[in-house]
Structures are given as C-alpha cells and as structure tokens.
C-alpha cells in the first residue's frame, strides 16, 4: 500500500461521494457547491494519472469558469426554481426516481462488466508503449511536449475548436439578449 495508492483511493472516494451527494441532494444550491468538491477531486485524480497540465486546466476552466456560470444562471433564474424541488418533500422513496435508479444501476453493471472483461492493463498497445518506454513517468515533464504537439500534430483540431468557441460566444450572446427586437 503505497502513498500513491492511498491518495488515489482518497481522491476517488471524495469524487464519487460528492458526486453522489450532488445527485441525491434535493437542494439545488448544495448540489452546485458540492460539485466544486467533485471537480477538485477529479483534478487530483488527473495529477495522479500524471497529467498535471490537464489538472490545472480543469481547475481554471471548470472551477473558475463553468461553475461561476452555473451559479449565475441559478441566481438569475429566481426563487421559483427552488419550489420545484420542495413538492416531493416528506416521501421517503420517490416512485418517480425508481426508473432512473434502475437505468443507472443496469448501465453501471454493464460498464463494469465490460471493463473487467476488457482487461485494459494488458492491451497490446499499452504493453508495447511500456516496452518502448513511451510511458509517462512521474519525473518526466510533459508540458513542453504538449505545447509542441498542440502547434504541430493537433493544429487542425486546435483551429477548429477556436472557430467553435467563437461561434459559441456569438450564439450565447445572441440567445441571451432581450426579446422583442428579433
């Protein structure tokens, strides 16, 4: 039981636990704020998977950008959004949620079964990567390599995503302006 493993279990426990709390909580505000914790724990998991740059990006974009946007949408949509949740208070088991639980549980069973059958650690290309020393090690620095690759190998997706971001920006601004002059 190495320290790495303890950290992995801790991070994944926090991530899954807070995600479950966000899913089961009846309170929208709690659900949003506990999602912060999930995202931070996931950033920790990315660090354990030796992707430190992705972890930093996760913290900057998700926690700094997306969650603030979600909070804005919650605050701008007023108190009535909370009333929807209050209606079913008191019932211990909500019958309307049973199909969703069944669906998620069955899907989880299928996915876990497939993961255990696929045996990802013994895939041919993974073995080959380890044999050819193409595996990221904890001491190797990946950020400069990511920068070079982003501007050479992945230049076309990079440009496509920049155009898509521009479109999303214009679209969001168009959608959220006042009605009546359309």
């Amino acid at each position, binding site marked *: 039981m190495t320290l790495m493993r303890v950290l992995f279990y801790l991070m994944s426990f926090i991530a899954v636990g807070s995600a479950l709390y966000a899913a089961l909580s009846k309170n929208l505000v709690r659900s949003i704020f506990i999602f912060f914790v999930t995202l931070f724990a996931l950033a920790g998991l990315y660090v354990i998977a030796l992707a430190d740059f992705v972890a930093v990006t996760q913290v900057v974009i998700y926690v700094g950008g997306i969650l603030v946007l979600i909070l804005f949408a919650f605050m701008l949509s007023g108190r009535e959004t909370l009333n929807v949740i209050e209606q079913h208070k008191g019932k211990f088991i909500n019958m309307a949620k049973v199909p969703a639980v069944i669906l998620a549980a069955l899907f989880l069973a299928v996915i876990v079964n497939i993961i*255990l059958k696929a045996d990802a650690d013994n895939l041919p290309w993974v073995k080959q990567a380890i044999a050819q020393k193409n595996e990221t090690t904890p001491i190797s620095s990946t950020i400069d390599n990511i920068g070079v690759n982003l501007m050479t190998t992945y230049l076309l997706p990079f440009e496509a995503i920049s155009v898509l971001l521009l479109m999303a920006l214009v679209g969001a601004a168009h959608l959220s302006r006042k009605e009546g002059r359309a």
Partner: protein
Amino acid sequence: MITLTDFLLVGALLFCTGMYMIVSKRNSIQVLIGIELMLNAAILNLVAFGKYDKLNNGGQVFALFAIVLAAATTAVALAIVLNVYRRYKTIDPDEIKNLRD
C-alpha cells in the same frame, strides 16, 4: 502502482451518477451538472489512457479539447436556460411543452 482498470472503474461510477442526474432531476441546472459529470468521467478515461502516449500526448490534448468544448456547451446551455425561464417562469424540463407559437 495504480492500474488503468482502477481509473476506468472510477470513471464508470461518475458516468452513471451523471446519467442518473440527467434522467431523474426536475431542474435544468441539475441536468446540466449531470452532463458535466459525464463529460468529466470521459476526460478521466482520456487522461488515464493518455499516460501511455508520451510522444504524441493524444490523451491529454484531447482531454484539453473536451474541457474547452464543455465550457462552450455550458455557456450556450445557460443562455438557453435563462431564455426558457424568462418565457415560462420555470426551468423544470417536464413543464416546457410548447413550441414557439
């Protein structure tokens, strides 16, 4: 050492949690959080596999692309949520049944 299967199992758990949120919640914002959870589970898988691609960094670069796409999606989705709230005074997906006219 932490194996790939561990990461995949955590990803599967998060994905199913997100799926439960999308199907069961009666609030558009919580549905959106569910979508973000599913995206994060997919990003976790990309990152875990990307460990075995040191030269090209395929996994990490596409994880970055997925994060940026999630940001774009959220911005547009929240603009739509605000519009729906302005028109219907509710953001329960079950209540929104009409087309524009």
